[in-house]
């Protein structure tokens, strides 16, 4: 995959060329009537790989003690050299495919220079001139729009620096230094804070579904920079400002709204918007200037002389394409085709989106996979009812998530079979399910049914008849009323039978037997 060769084609490209201001008809927005909002988003998504982008260090989470996942390369020791992690490339390609982007036959790595304490080498390795993928798109079904993806590039994350003002020191943790990131750059195709929010949420679900990123915004594994500009409807786009480092969809939407209102207010007073980089203060709900265009640093980009160009051929891309997990839209369509209701599909997908994302593209097993396994050879609608109504319902009642579900696929499968075959009643089935959740037993439902004497009797109704005669004897008044033709009262007698059978009797059978005996 890696070519050996040193030739490079270099072109300076304008990172944010805004060629096609897309042709959507402007929608009136009561927040800024007469104005149109234009939004583009750069998402930095940490690649969910076991090791770093260019070194053998393991990835870390918030529990990892500081500076323990660091090898000499991560700390920029002299004499160390980068070695590209093929897993990161694979996840980048998966992401590109999921975004309908063109994986580039040849991409390359560049150095972006700046001095900061959490950047030990003094440069970040990124793909400034030749990104791994270009020209993708992400469809936002809810808004009925398609956002063009300009490019996807691989790059290194930085370490973390924490200021301790009391001691006048800054603490550096290099655990994150050198982890792989995907920078996913959209074209300025969004027109409202809501579309921007939907874009990030859809992208989040997509990345999770292909296993390239865990979508965890709170922990910083997905971060957004947002470009915002406003223009009067029908006029060309205005001057944009970039809002940096937004770590939640909610705050991002608030930040865009605040920024739009700020820009509109300026323009309405005849003051031009200055192109600048801004931060967002969540508490005060306002953006503030970080640096002006003139103050922008010169990163002195240079092709990295240590890393040969990354050559990706179609065989490699096709191999990955053939092993691609289903994307959310495809999963939705497939489940609907099985006859599941829209609501059931959304419940399954929603629970599924909370599943664990494994390292190096190993796909976590979520609610959809669970459903698929249980539904193999069974009626999908029955299975989805058991999962969404009974299992998820009971888990919710117990304040547990699907991740904590102790019920194996075999247990769920056999339970559905027992009930379908009439070997236990629905009521008993629910009892068995609750029993499994509370005892976390690995016993099969058939064994539990035996232990708890929940199996329906298969003695040709002898036991049922016995329970019914006992009930009639115990409730002579009600029995007489039924005999007189007051059929509503039969339910009362049935309840007695059900109690005696501890739910193992089938209601329909009990009713039939009682009516026969009380003719």
């Amino acid at each position, binding site marked *: 995959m*890696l070519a*050996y*060769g*040193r*030739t*490079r084609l*270099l072109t*300076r490209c304008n990172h944010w060329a805004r060629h096609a201001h897309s042709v959507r008809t402007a929608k009136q927005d009561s927040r800024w009537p007469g104005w149109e909002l234009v939004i583009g988003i750069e998402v930095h998504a940490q690649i969910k790989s076991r090791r770093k982008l260019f070194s053998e260090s393991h990835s870390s989470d918030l529990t990892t003690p500081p500076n323990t996942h660091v090898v*000499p390369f991560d*700390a*920029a*020791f*002299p*004499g*160390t*050299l*980068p*070695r*590209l992690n093929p897993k990161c490339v694979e996840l980048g390609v998966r992401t590109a495919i999921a975004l309908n982007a063109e994986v580039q036959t040849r991409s390359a790595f560049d*150095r972006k*220079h700046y*001095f*900061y*304490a959490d950047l*030990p*080498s*003094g*440069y970040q390795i990124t793909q400034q001139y030749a990104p791994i993928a270009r020209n993708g798109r992400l469809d936002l079904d809810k808004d009925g729009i398609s956002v063009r993806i300009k490019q996807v590039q691989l790059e290194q994350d930085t370490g973390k620096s924490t200021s301790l003002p009391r001691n006048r020191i800054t603490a*550096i943790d290099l655990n994150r230094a050198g982890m792989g990131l995907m920078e996913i750059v959209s074209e300025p195709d969004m027109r409202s804070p809501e579309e921007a929010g939907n874009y990030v949420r859809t992208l989040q679900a997509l990345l999770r579904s292909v296993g390239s990123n865990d979508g965890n915004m709170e922990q910083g594994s997905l971060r957004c920079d947002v470009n915002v500009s406003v223009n009067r409807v029908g006029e060309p786009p205005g001057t944009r400002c970039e809002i940096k480092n937004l770590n939640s969809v909610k705050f991002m939407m608030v930040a865009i709204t605040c920024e739009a209102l700020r820009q509109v207010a300026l323009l309405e007073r005849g003051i031009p918007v200055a192109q600048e980089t801004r931060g967002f203060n969540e508490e005060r709900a306002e953006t503030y200037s970080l640096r002006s265009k003139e103050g922008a640093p*010169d990163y*002195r*980009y*240079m092709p990295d*002389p*240590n*890393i*040969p160009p990354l050559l990706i051929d179609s065989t490699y891309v096709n191999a990955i394409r053939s092993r691609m997990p289903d994307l959310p839209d495809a999963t939705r369509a497939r489940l609907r085709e099985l006859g599941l209701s829209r609501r059931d599909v959304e419940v399954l997908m929603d629970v599924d989106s909370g599943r664990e994302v494994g390292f190096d593209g190993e796909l976590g097993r979520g609610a959809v996979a669970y459903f698929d396994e249980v539904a193999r050879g069974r009626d999908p609608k029955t299975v989805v009812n058991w999962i969404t109504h009974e299992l998820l319902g009971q888990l919710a009642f117990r304040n547990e998530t699907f991740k904590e579900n102790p019920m194996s696929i075999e247990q769920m499968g056999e339970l559905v079979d027992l009930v379908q075959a009439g070997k236990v009643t629905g009521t008993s089935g629910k009892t068995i399910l609750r029993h499994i959740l509370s005892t976390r037993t690995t016993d099969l439902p058939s064994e539990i049914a035996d232990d708890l004497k929940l199996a329906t009797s298969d003695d040709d109704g002898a036991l049922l008849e016995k329970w019914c005669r006992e009930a009639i004897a115990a409730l002579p008044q009600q029995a007489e009323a039924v005999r007189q033709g007051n059929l509503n009262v039969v339910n009362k007698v049935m309840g007695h039978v059900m109690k005696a059978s501890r739910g193992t009797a089938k209601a329909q059978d009990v009713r039939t037997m009682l009516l026969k005996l009380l003719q």
Partner: protein
Amino acid sequence: MLENFHSPFDATVVSLLSASGAEIVGKTNCDEFGMGCVKDSSLGTDTGGSVRLPASYCGIIGLKPSYGIISRWGIVSFADSLDCVGVLARDVSTTKRVHDIIGVYDSRDPTAAPPHIRQKARQLIEDHLETLKGDSLAGLRVGVPQEYFPTELQPSIVTPVRTILDQLRARGATIVPISLPSTPYALSAYYVISSAEASSNLARYDGIEYGMRVEPPPGANLTKTANVYAYTRSQGFGKEVQRRMLLGTYALSADAFENYFLQAQRVRKLVKADFDRVFCIPNALNAPSTGPVKPVEGVHVLIHPSAIQTAPALPDNEGCSQEDDTSTLDAYVQDVMTVPASLAGLPALNVPAGKGADGWPIGVSVVGQWGSDDLVLRVGEVIERCREDL
């Protein structure tokens, strides 16, 4: 900058030599970023001539192998795309012995030529040259590039070079005058590229993770990280290193990038193309050419003077303190004969060629196509014997 720094790991070349039973006796002092040495021979990095020039001035063998043949893992980078581990020794056979031990593929060096490329280069040489037997050079075509006899060249250097060419001809070699027209631009391109890469590579010496650190004085403006680093970097780097970093930083700045860095890369391509045009052996790094076979007038190796002069005198005390621009420029011109092979990544070997008018040693360089290190050493050995015959 790295005075009290001890690396937590060994360079691949050091591990390989130790494993083969070599005794590592000490580390020599190079100007600011140098390397270790072994008895009978020593290693050094050659970015633009730092092995070949000293060898020429001292009258010993100095080899800069093909780029990518010897692992750079553990080597302090100056300019990654040019840095090579070179070998200095009294004779060619020792040089070859060391080169054979350390010239193996190392997956820790991403710029190392993988085994199949090395094999391809060997095959291409075999395809284009009958094995040379004994002292006979029958069938070998030696190119002499006219651009390597510039006006700066000391006249006393020409005669010994001519003598060697005569002796090679006497042993059956064909001497062919050739032209490498991009040579005059190579030096400027070299200084732009090497300084740019150095400015990038030396950014890591900031006094945080390792090495020397100068604490900012009380009351210093610490609002920017760069302000904190400046104390360490101003004191830790010498004048010449600082000069190169400033030059390189400028070459990479947005305004200068196109006219300096990219222009230098274009020149580098031209220099490579020059060499590929004169060699009859194709470059194993290029995509396989489907075109017609190279014309027979192509040469197997090149020979030219290694330096424009014998060892320059150390500046006297006055000159030293003056640091005037002329002396700096003079020092840069020293590299004019060695940098083209560095830019093209080709193997180049200095072999002693006698004495100049001032009685100090002079050397000739044998330069070959990429991967033909063995051929270059083989020709060097013959030159060595020619000298013994004198």
